[in-house]
């Protein structure tokens, strides 16, 4: 498969998966919390494409896209959300607490950024050559520990990639009410090379990240990638308070639909159908399996 097809396969898979989740929640079939990355898939796909086996990822509450793009583990993630034994964390953690093979996510904003620094320090000491990527939202730039972590990463010259997914909101609060000054000026204040991109095109994300990963792998110093994007879905589920006209306007720049146009129609249709088929089979299999806890006294 060429890269365009691979990227589209991932984009469409993530979108389908998350649309399915929102439906399941609205029907009361899933419980707990969830945060979909609908509208932000380009980052997940474009950035993880640079990662190799040893690389480490820390992600936040909006982690499904990052996880799926990296691991392709649809069954594990869905089972986790359903609280099933077969889940990534056996149904304990749910949507925002995924831990597997160098992928860690949790729901405490800010803390993970420093955790990524520690993980990168370990990789550096081991001389593994691994890059540690940490995803954070624009709202999370409100947490002081983000800057403590940037300082440490720069001071100790650690191979950390800070990815700021700037979607203009933290929950219901617009960024303009949260942040003073320029976002990119923050990492730069620590001497961290920072690249900004305002594009939902996966190829553009991939290309922009190429020099960052190359740099990280050659000199091992931290880098920052600021992505200006937009979330097309609710913050969690059914809790959207944004202007509907604003959301409508952003639909023109839907990363999945736009990317689909790069492929011949029959190829795109085939990929969509294969993803759909795969999801349907996994859902059916999980619906028959026993819920978590039934095996636990």
């Amino acid at each position, binding site marked *: 498969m060429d890269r365009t097809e691979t990227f589209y396969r991932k984009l469409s898979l993530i979108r389908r998966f998350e649309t399915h989740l929102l439906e399941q929640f609205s029907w009361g079939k899933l419980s707990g919390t969830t945060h979909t990355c609908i509208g932000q898939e380009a980052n997940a796909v474009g950035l993880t494409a640079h990662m190799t086996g040893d690389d480490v990822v820390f992600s936040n509450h909006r982690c499904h896209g990052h996880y799926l793009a990296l691991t392709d583990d649809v069954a594990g993630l869905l089972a*986790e*959300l359903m609280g099933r034994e077969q889940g990534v964390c056996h149904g304990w*953690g749910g*949507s925002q607490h995924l831990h597997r093979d160098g992928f860690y996510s949790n729901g405490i904003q800010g803390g993970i950024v420093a955790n990524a620094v520690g993980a990168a320090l370990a990789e550096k000491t081991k001389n593994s050559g691994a890059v540690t990527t940490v995803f954070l939202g624009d709202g999370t730039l*409100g*947490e002081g520990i983000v800057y403590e972590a940037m300082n440490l990463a720069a001071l100790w010259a650690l191979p950390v990639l800070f990815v700021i997914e700037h979607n203009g909101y933290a*929950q*219901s609060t617009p960024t303009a009410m949260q942040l003073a000054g320029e976002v990119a000026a923050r990492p730069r204040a620590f001497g961290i090379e920072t690249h900004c991109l305002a594009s939902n095109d996966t190829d553009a994300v991939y290309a922009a990240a190429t020099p960052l990963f190359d740099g990280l792998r050659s000199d091992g110093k931290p880098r920052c990638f600021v992505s200006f994007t937009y979330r097309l879905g609710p913050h969690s589920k059914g809790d959207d308070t944004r202007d509907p006209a604003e959301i409508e306007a952003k639909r023109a720049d839907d990363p999945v639909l736009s990317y689909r146009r790069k492929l011949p129609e029959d190829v795109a249709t085939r990929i969509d159908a294969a993803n759909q088929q795969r999801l349907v089979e996994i859902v059916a299999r999980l619906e028959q399996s026993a819920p978590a*806890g039934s095996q636990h006294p």
Partner: protein
Amino acid sequence: MATMAQAVRMALHYGETHLGVTDVFGEDVGPPLGGVFTATQGLKTAWNSPLDERGIIGTAIGLALAGQRPVAEIQFGDYIFNTIDLLKLAGNTCWSSMGQYNLPMVVTTIVGAGIHGSIYHSHSFESMAAHIPGWKIVLPSRPIDAYGLMISALKDNNPTLYMYPKALIRVKGKDLIPGEPADERELKKMIDAPPGPTLYDIIDVRSRWEPRWPEGLTDYQVPIGKARIHREGADISVITYARHVFMAEKAAEILKAENGIDVEIIDLRTLYPWDRETVFNSVRKTGRCLVLNEDTPVCNFGEHIFRTIVDECFYELTAKPRVLAGADVPGVGLHPAYEEASIPQVNDIVRELRGICGEAP
């Protein structure tokens, strides 16, 4: 009757109109959301802070030092842990300044399990909080207490940690809050922001929406430090609070029906300073007690009550008291079965109560 979310909102409204509250703030506390659980919807002094818990608590301390009466919200109790150093500071300010500085601030946060929120929407905080001297700590189970305790907290000149249980936030009360309209649909029309025809219309509808606050709200207070007897009984006392008041009630009904055992339930309402007199009187009357809550068991707040009961009522006890707390696990798992295994359930309470009552004196 009002839900706890509505009760808190009405009390805060009373606070901003009568008690000098000028700032009710925190993450998503102001418009358009009015708080994740709508407890601050429609308040004229409510505003959104950045996503920054230490900034929120730190700012509240500064405002209070300047003599204002801030109400600062931490969106979920699960996110308050990174503010502990500042909570320590707030707690010791009056003491360390030899009473020269008061700190009239209220910190609100929602705690406990019961909504299948998994690891970071299920934490309890009371045992940690009780380790921070200088704070008054309240945790109501009923909307009317939520109202009355909020008024008391807003009037207090030193910091109050006002927690409320997630599982009960949308539960309607059984008692009319003074000034609350008798018709709950009327109350809803008056103070609940309407959902839009579709979710995406919320902002449009709400920008035109203004609450109509009930005219007759009063400064009805529930004194801090006063427990209440939720159910009278002669045979055994359950000392509890928050969601477990109602779980204990269900257990009590089962014990009455199946064993003829008469359970008394004390709803502490205030955890610090807790109502020793009401607790001791109850335990002295029944001679048996179970201290019940859902926080983790090691250094559980209930252990402190247990120890004090042993110290003060030892010779009046006819059976060994027990503590029933949450499981010794770092968090609450997602699946309902995990949640149920981590948090005392009605049948666990029944089992403990039967166990205590079955001990020969």
